[in-house]
């Protein structure tokens, strides 16, 4: 499985993603520079976390105009799997590949911590190795992770099983205290209609190695690595 990782000048989780796909999973992984106009031959595209172009304006607002983005949209429209993590999620919403917007955290502060999540949908190519409603722990690290979408559109996401992760308490409840950033309906990750684009604020690439405190993120990459795999 050939992974491609988009690199904007302010991307800073590019190496961490590559560490997981190349070093942990042993898959060929290519960095793709933002000034390119074409994607190389890849099977999965990752848009990593970071501050694409500094994000002084609005996270991801400039990145969507980047030379590579036409090729990204094209890849996604043809059904290629695209995983946007953190800043990647923000860019996907700015680019219109996913609905909604990521507002500033309710606390107005950057938050870096482990967060409990519930896998709301394991019927995706990103999450098929998780159990239905499985509780997992992944780190979050963002200033603008407060997902917003109007009520009607949220209802539509819910009806179509497009919410992939929700912030929950350790015991799996959507209590107010379990929502770290104020996201509407506790949404931590969503997919597009076709199911080939996933945007999520938590960082699965930071939970792929036991020595770093958790391994709940590795199955997301393994799901992509083994589209039909069982383990």
């Amino acid at each position, binding site marked *: 499985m050939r992974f491609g990782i988009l690199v904007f000048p302010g991307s800073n989780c590019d190496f961490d993603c590559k560490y997981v796909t190349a070093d942990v999973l042993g898959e060929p992984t290519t960095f793709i520079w933002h000034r390119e106009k074409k994607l190389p031959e890849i099977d999965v595209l990752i848009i990593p976390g970071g501050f694409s172009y500094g994000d002084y304006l609005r996270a991801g607002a400039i990145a969507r105009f980047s030379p590579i983005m036409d090729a990204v949209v094209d890849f996604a429209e043809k059904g290629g799997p695209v995983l946007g993590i953190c800043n990647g999620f923000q860019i996907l919403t700015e680019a219109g590949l996913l609905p909604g917007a990521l507002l500033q955290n309710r606390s107005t502060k950057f938050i*870096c911590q482990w967060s409990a999540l519930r896998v709301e949908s394991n019927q995706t190519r990103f999450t098929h190795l998780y159990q239905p409603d499985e509780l997992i722990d992944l780190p979050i690290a963002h200033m603008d992770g407060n997902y917003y979408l109007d009520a009607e559109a949220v209802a539509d996401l819910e009806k179509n099983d497009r919410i992939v992760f929700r912030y929950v308490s350790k015991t799996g409840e959507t209590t107010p205290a379990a929502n770290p950033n104020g996201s509407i309906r506790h949404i931590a990750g969503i997919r597009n209609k076709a199911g080939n684009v996933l945007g999520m604020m938590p960082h699965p690439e930071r939970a792929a190695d036991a020595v770093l405190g958790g391994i709940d993120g590795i199955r997301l990459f393994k799901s992509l690595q083994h589209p039909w795999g069982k383990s």
Partner: protein
Amino acid sequence: MSDSHYEALPYHTLTDEEYEKTKKLLNRAPNATELAIFSAMWSEHCSYKSSKRYLARFPTKGKHVIHGPGENAGVVDVGDDWVAVFKIESHNHPSYIEPFQGAATGVGGILRDVFTMGARPVALLNSLRFGPLEVPKNRYLMEQVVAGIAGYGNCIGVPTLGGEIVFNEIYSKNPLVNVFCLGIAKKDEIVTASAGGIGNPVIYVGSKTGRDGVHGATMASAELNEATEDRHTVQVGDPFTEKRLLEACLELIRSGALVGIQDMGAAGLTSSATEMADRGDCGIEIDLAKIPLRDASITPEEIMISESQERMLLVAKKGREVEVAAIFERWDLDVAEIGVVTDDSIFRVKKADALVAEIPVKALTAEAPLYDRPVKEPAFQDMLLGLQVEALPEPKSYSETLLTLLSSPNFASKQWVYQQYDHMIQNNTVIPPGQGAAMIRLKGTNKALAMTTDGNSTYALLHPYFGGAIAVAEAARNLACVGAKPIGLTNCLNFGNPERPETMWSFGLAVEGMADACTRLEIPVVSGNVSLYNETLGLGIYPTPIVGMVGLIDSAALIETPLTPGFKAPGEKIMLIGDTREELGGTAYLKMIHAQERGYPPNLDFEKEKSVQAVVRKAAAAALLRSAQDCAEGGLLVALAESCLLSPSEVGGKVEIDAPSFRLDGFLLGESQSRILVTVKPEDLAALHALIAAEGLSSTLLGETGEAALQVSVKGRSRPLMRVSLDAMKEAYENGITDYFETHSGSRRRLNDNG
């Protein structure tokens, strides 16, 4: 220009004597630009003119040291072909004037010091000092400093792994922001900040030059008063540009086209050019007409001393200019060839064809004034040392005393702070912030690096020698608690006005204490920074020597199962290694409960300290320890409470002590040094005892871990001395800081606009 005019020039801060010296060195009077250059290079900040003679005391050699002080950062061999590159630096003055940008650019500066050496930054720490949080201005300063550190580190993608924060009234008008950065590189990738190769091009890269930070180095070399609170002297940080500069510089260094490179930090273009020429024993000629400018109206003096951020000066190999330019253009950074390396040892500044300044390089460096400033013991010192212990009432309730300490911001959880820092990025964080020393693994090896910052200014106030020595000992002890062997130290010496003899008295003694501790514990000083003039309106800070220390862990087992301070499971033995004496002077207990900062601080026996650390490292390597916790500020009682609070599985402890031969509060809350609190499985107790006996140390078996509470009893007394539930301790510990910043249900302090 006639002499009478020089005082009116905007960018000079020389004394009359220093001005006379410049005339002698030049054989003429300096012009306005030259005067600005001299002022910047001879400022305390750049020249270390008051402190240099003391700094020579530090041991700087060691078998692992590759580059000691004098480079942008120290370099230490960690084996497997890797080196660790680190330094700590202050950004105190700017952080008081403009806390967000002051702190942010402090982070930016220390990062550049590390990556100019060819190392990729992998960790940041910071050591912060603020006034009490009851004061709204202090809350503002803390909130903004933390946000500034977070904003910069998070964006550039280097984890901030904590450090320490201390609150004391003395820092209300002089907050301290010391930032530490650690980088790693392959041994052969290290470069230095030397110019060389006559005819080689001098190249400017990074942001354009503006007026921000003009006067920064000289501002940092004077006391603050209301008039000097000029925000324009503070630089503005741009972490996105720094990220690009970081990647581009590392690419350039790997390309082999580079001769030397230096950050344009304090005193900007002036210091980077002259220091590189100085190290390379050559001259440099630059043309101001070629400098990328933000504003065409900026004067030559301003260009020379601007401290606009995210700029680098480099010398490249002749003939490879196009290659160098291509790297920086790829990262959308300005790049301009502004000069050339010359053989005449002169720093020459032109603007197109006009000569602007011409100064021998050594006149700015080797010939900079050196002062042997007068030294005098403060008149109040004896009074400070006098402590009448008998007059102090012992706590009526140890539970309440403990909860008071835990809820004070000095001991309370710093989670509110470090959860604003991305401390996990780069996928290396093995021990996150908040648990003593932090630890990162070195990917692809069986090694990890632990790091800590420490310093106790109350001790340094009362007894500068022990204050300095204990800062070193405690940092090393914190590293021992995760099983790491110290490999090097960097320090930041924050003091008041050196023109006061009392300041230099404490400075000299603190340096002596640190130097002795480094020598005896065999830890070389590889880099550092001196920050003087930490005074506002005549009020100076306590002497505040801060130590940043790095330790090596050379065992896969200690990375897979790191040693941390929290109790792990019930039924394990709690043991205190080391001796406890009645040492209440300078303790946190004395200050917070009895409102006194006085008395002799704890004594330090170097040999005993060394043995205690060695035993804990050996026991850690042999996997005998389940937890290890430095027993320092707050004494045994706070150490026990922290081990409960940091337990990943809500384990508490039951402790029974022998009635001490001295005051009970001295035993439980005194701060005797060279003590480490550990837990051990019952079946490993004998092996641990054997290790302790082999070092000739004593230890005390205190009790056993158990249910979620801390209980302390004294043998022979019918009822326990105290029992506090883990929940009660958590309530105090977890809200101690957040209560000042967030109103939440259960908040014990109601904030209003008046604080």
